[in-house]
């Protein structure tokens, strides 16, 4: 290396570092990608929220495209996304099922009564055991499952109208048109 060029090395190293730091500003270190994408839905069988006698399981949900939304009354972000869920439910484009995660039954039922119920049905996961199978580490989390029961998409954090329009609705379209 020419005598003078070697003195540029520190600056070059810093430039690379700065580039990474800049990139880092738009990344969220808290997001953990899911290893469950393209894997089958974890099997579960839970009582429903509204009727403790009735059960809901993954097998009853095969054959259609559906959305799993993990939520709880203690989660403020879930409150924030509730409007979006209601909107999505009204479009009729997808069935939304909920996993009520580590919550209290009466509070959850009251919540849905007061704020509206976008869910076809809710599974009541009091202990959070099923949540662990889904790799849940914070609420809300949203999954989209295809007709074969394979998880195709996960979103961590509250849904927004933009995400629904730009990511979710196109995906639903794609999955619906696939052979079932």
């Amino acid at each position: 290396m020419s005598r003078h060029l070697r003195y540029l090395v520190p600056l070059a190293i810093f430039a690379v570092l700065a580039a990474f730091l800049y990139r880092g500003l738009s990344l969220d270190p808290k997001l953990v990608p899911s290893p469950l994408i393209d894997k089958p839905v974890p099997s579960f069988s839970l009582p429903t929220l509204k009727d403790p006698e009735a059960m809901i399981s993954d097998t009853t949900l095969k054959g259609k495209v559906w959305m799993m939304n993990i939520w709880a009354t203690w989660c403020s972000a879930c409150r924030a996304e509730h409007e979006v869920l209601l909107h999505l439910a009204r479009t009729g484009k997808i069935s939304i099922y909920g996993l009520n995660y580590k919550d209290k039954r009466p509070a959850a039922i009251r919540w849905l009564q007061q704020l509206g119920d976008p869910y076809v049905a809710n599974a009541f996961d009091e202990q959070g055991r099923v949540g662990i199978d889904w790799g849940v580490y914070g609420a809300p989390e949203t999954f989209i499952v295809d007709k074969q029961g394979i998880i195709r998409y996960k979103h961590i954090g509250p849904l927004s109208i933009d995400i629904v329009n730009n990511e979710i609705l196109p995906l639903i379209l794609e999955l619906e048109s696939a052979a079932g």
Partner: protein
Amino acid sequence: MIPELGHFALILTLCLALVLSIFPMIGSLNNTPAWVSLARPAAWGQFVFVAIAFACLLSSFLNDDFSVLYVAQHGNTQLPTIYKVSAVWGAHEGSLLLWALILSGWTLAVAIFSRDLPEEVVARVLSVMGIVSIGFLSFLIFTSNPFERTFPVPLEGGDLNPLLQDLGLAIHPPMLYMGYVGLSVAFSFAIAALVGGKLDAAWARWSRPWTLVAWVFLTIGITLGSWWAYYELGWGGWWFWDPVENASFMPWLAGTALIHSLAVAEKRGAFKRWTVLLALLAFSLSLLGTFLVRSGVLTSVHSFASDPERGLFILIFLCVVIGGSLALYAWRAPDVTSGGRFDLLSRETLLLGNNLLLVVITAFILLGTLAPLVYDALGWGKISVGFPWFNAMFVSFTPFLVVLMGIGPLTRWKHHDAGDLARQLRIAFLVSIAGGLIAASPLFHQASIGAGLAVMLSLWVVTTLLASIRLRLKHRDGLAAMGRDFLSRGGRSYYGMVVAHLGIAVFIIGVTFVSLFEVEEDIRMSPGQTAELGGYTFRFEGVQPHQGANYRADRGTIRVTKDGEEVTLLHPEKRTYLVQTKPMTEAGIDGRLMRDIYVSLGESLGRGDWSLRLYYKPFVRWIWLGGILIAVGGLLAASDRRYRIKVRRTVVDTAKSIRSKPLAAESRS
């Protein structure tokens, strides 16, 4: 009114910082003495106004002025006065104001204590410090204004995070900032030298005491932080390799390399370019640390803010300061002449080896800290790098450093005969190996390679230090001779080194022994029940409610006895602060030099039963004792008489060079 005054004062400070950055620097290049002479007054002015701003914020806290948003978020009427003071720097905006204040303070100090330096050098140094100041002040004024008002005015403040309501943690940030900011002095001297084109032994001699003092503060700050984590967080850990901790450790390592490198540059005129680069690096790492903890780029249990917008501002600032300084380095460094030659076996080489190891360690700490970000950015998935990785790497590298540390002081400058060296090291070597073997064997406590290694390394340090002292004092025996030597020129510098290196040995013993030999037990206890641990008997005497100034607590009583004799009564607590209701554990600790007994309360299990964690931690205080010794050593070295001897000759020489072109000063040999 007062917050507005503070805000205004900040703006004035920025204006003065602008004056300070622009005029003296340009004046020194154009030979305009009037502009050069603006430096000192501008430094004074900057300090006065930022101090006023700081005083305004302090007054807002003391008067519970919740119309100020920052005070509303972190103050509280029930907060004890001392914590109202420390709340000023307890969060993002206020801590930045503290940074700015300390930076102005150091700038002023340089302005005052630089009578011996040529005016143009002082002007450049102060200008560079002014540029850094502009960065922080702009950041404050434009993105993080501590004086922002809030309306409607809340009746009560959000309270200072209970974790921070502690004396140790109150002092910890100021100490750290004194260190971070102090490194900017070495940085500024380096820039001034590059600009002026004159990099000589005088530059190294001027920089050295400033760097040492900054480094001492950083040492104290880090030691305090570790000590605080130990007794406050309730589970006996004292270092977690968390990004914020690493952000303080990296400048410290670079600073250590720098003070050693400055020694060579001063005495032998060698390593000049390398030393300049280190000076730039040390402060750059301080700034980088500031970025990492405030930008949200990394997750940490104690980051200040996670705001990408603010992060962008700091990043741009980093690019200007670090990028600019490294560009200057690339441009000017090639023209710096090389200094004295030295052989492969010489003190120069060993110090260079020391520098090398320290820089590599710094590099891999940076690597590990940023790895999650790098991997994510490159799309290589999410990984996490935690305590085990950092520990494994650090423990792998440190022994080499310690070995060099022993040999270095015994080695001559320029050339040392290998045979001679081997002979001088023989006893130290044998004693260390023997000691290590004994310590590793069951004779000692329990068989442990780690203990053996630690004892071997520490003995190595101690025996080589003794050999070094003996060599230095040859022909003169006795304490009186040592006393005279201490007071002589270069004496405190040498004994400072001895004390600091001793501190490292003490630290190694502390860390290793507590890691290997500590005992803990998780236990459920009923009142009256006893448990045995580490040779002590712990009797749980129940938990009572207790009311503090601004918290409610469950206060446990544990009676500790050994062989029937009472050793201590411990009172671990579980506190709930009135405003921020997250529960806090206060451990009950009985601390002695050779061991700590540590108890923390877990959960109430009903019927008066509680879960407790009991610890026996041998030698844990040696960790911070080591840190204190290192700091003391540094102070001793900084106080050496030779730094205060006025060197008039240098002033005259460089005065002549004001007229001549900077680059023509030295010819290549």
